[in-house]
């Protein structure tokens, strides 16, 4: 069953008042993501992959097209209905530091979604217990709870972001280059954590990256995006002979050139 289906999705940004100029960031994209599947989205910067990720969660309004989430057309519903669906879809951003509130201690940040009472009201004690459980899952220590984001490393902050997402236990997550600002060694830790958490919770995911090796590691299928359009979809079975010359990670391009 499809959890997410995009039909002829378009997003044009306009600039200029008299002589309008349109940038076609997403230009007629259709695809689906099955329940529990991870779809990779590969593309260079400016290909529209981040815009597409944001559209799927309706963080920005599409110019045209429809998005079906679990059978509901989320482009047609009003703000109140959208608010009800929002907890089921979450996003991991590129820069963990700027996605956490700098004035909130880690414990408060993770407790915040729990206080919304999405899965029934929780007592203060229950929230505390759940926070401790969550930081254990993402590999942080209780000593981190009293710190602020600036006191943690990038990798640790990304773990906090994951704990917050687990707190709402969403059905669908868009991960937009979640390790782009991290060290190579920490990147491997975070990616493996995302993969593990995802398989334990059966989360459906759209994973955005410009690194084909990362996507091969993380995804069931990979869609390639170029200038606002999806130009190809690759199944896991043909990952091995994936075209490597055109869409490739920087280091290889340099080594070969």
């Amino acid at each position: 069953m499809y959890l997410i289906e995009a039909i002829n999705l378009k997003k044009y940004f306009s600039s200029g008042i008299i002589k309008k100029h349109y940038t076609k960031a997403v230009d007629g994209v259709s695809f689906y993501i099955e329940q529990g599947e991870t779809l990779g989205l590969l593309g260079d910067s400016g290909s529209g992959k981040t815009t597409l990720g944001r559209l799927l969660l309706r963080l920005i309004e599409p110019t045209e097209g429809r998005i079906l989430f679990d059978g509901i057309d989320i482009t047609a519903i009003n703000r109140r209905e959208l608010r009800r669906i929002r907890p089921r879809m979450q996003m991991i951003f590129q820069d963990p530091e700027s996605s956490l509130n700098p004035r909130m201690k880690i414990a408060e940040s993770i407790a915040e979604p729990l206080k919304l009472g999405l899965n029934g009201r929780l007592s203060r004690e229950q929230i505390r217990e759940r926070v401790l459980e969550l930081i254990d899952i993402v590999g942080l220590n209780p000593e981190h709870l009293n710190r602020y984001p600036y006191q943690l490393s990038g990798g640790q902050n990304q773990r906090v972001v994951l704990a917050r997402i687990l707190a709402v236990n969403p059905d669908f997550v868009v991960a937009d280059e979640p390790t782009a600002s991290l060290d190579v060694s920490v990147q491997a830790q975070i990616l493996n954590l995302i993969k593990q958490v995802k398989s334990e919770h059966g989360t459906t995911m759209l994973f955005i990256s410009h690194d084909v090796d990362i996507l091969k590691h993380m995804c069931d299928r990979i869609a390639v995006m170029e200038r606002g359009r999806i130009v190809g979809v690759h199944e896991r079975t043909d990952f091995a002979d994936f075209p490597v010359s055109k869409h490739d990670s920087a280091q290889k391009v340099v080594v070969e050139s």
Partner: protein
Amino acid sequence: MRLLELVDLTVSFPTVDGVVRAVDHVHLSIDNVERMGLIGETGCGKTVLGMSIIRLLHPSARVGGRILYRGRDLLEISARDMQRLRGKEIALIPQNPTTSLNPVLRVGDQIAEVIQLHHGMSKTEAWRLAVNMLGEMRIPDPERRARQYPHELSGGMRERVLITMALACNPTFIIADEPTKGLDSKTKSQILRLMRTVTAGRSMLMITHDLGVARSICDRIAVMYAGELLEWGPSEEIMDDPLHPYTRGLINSLPSHGLEAIPGTSPSLINLPSGCRFHPRCRLATKTCKNIHPDMIDLGNGRAVRCILCT
């Protein structure tokens, strides 16, 4: 011929929590026309090492040992002599192009400033040279770009401006600190290609956390962990046949090598583990590793390693 030799270099910072030993008894030499990659995780002291060579550390830093540049100890020379070397002999490509450029000056002026200072040229001449150089860095329409401010340029473009500034006075030795950080893959490969061209025939210390990046440009690679060097050798040999378990771990965590993570996190530089500093994260660690701090052993074939299991 040796160009730079670090002899027993130690840099520490006193803080309220204790003394941070960012660089701990490092011995490293760089030859003429040699490009050396310095690899390590965030907080291992690699940036501090680079900044100590060009003497741009915070005043609270305590620096010990010797930094021999063409046989002259840079730690001994006066601030004025050092200033003469900076930019002209030894240039720095700093981390983070966004904060390293002056936001209220046109980029052309920032490049011209270096040329004026070291070559005593007039402002007009220096400006013309700056524009020419921007063109050589493959910046399209350099005349117009030189008149722009940093915020009007893209990340890759700003990085090119920083590289132009570093090369403006034709330095012998370049220290490049994470020149590809925060760039997308396409821009990253363009910048790496440019770096490789412009540093040909010069010496360089390239600081990065990405082994793939270092391998693509550098002749040799040195691996740093918790303030000390663990291994060094020719780039290809380090990549194809790493000796230290940490180096092996770094290679395996590359996306192209299976994304296998090294467990745990690097230690705090205030509270270092006993024995081998890597032992708490090492899969091969024995009891001896916990107790004995291994020395760097020169294997004689151009490689050196700090691990009792490898020597």
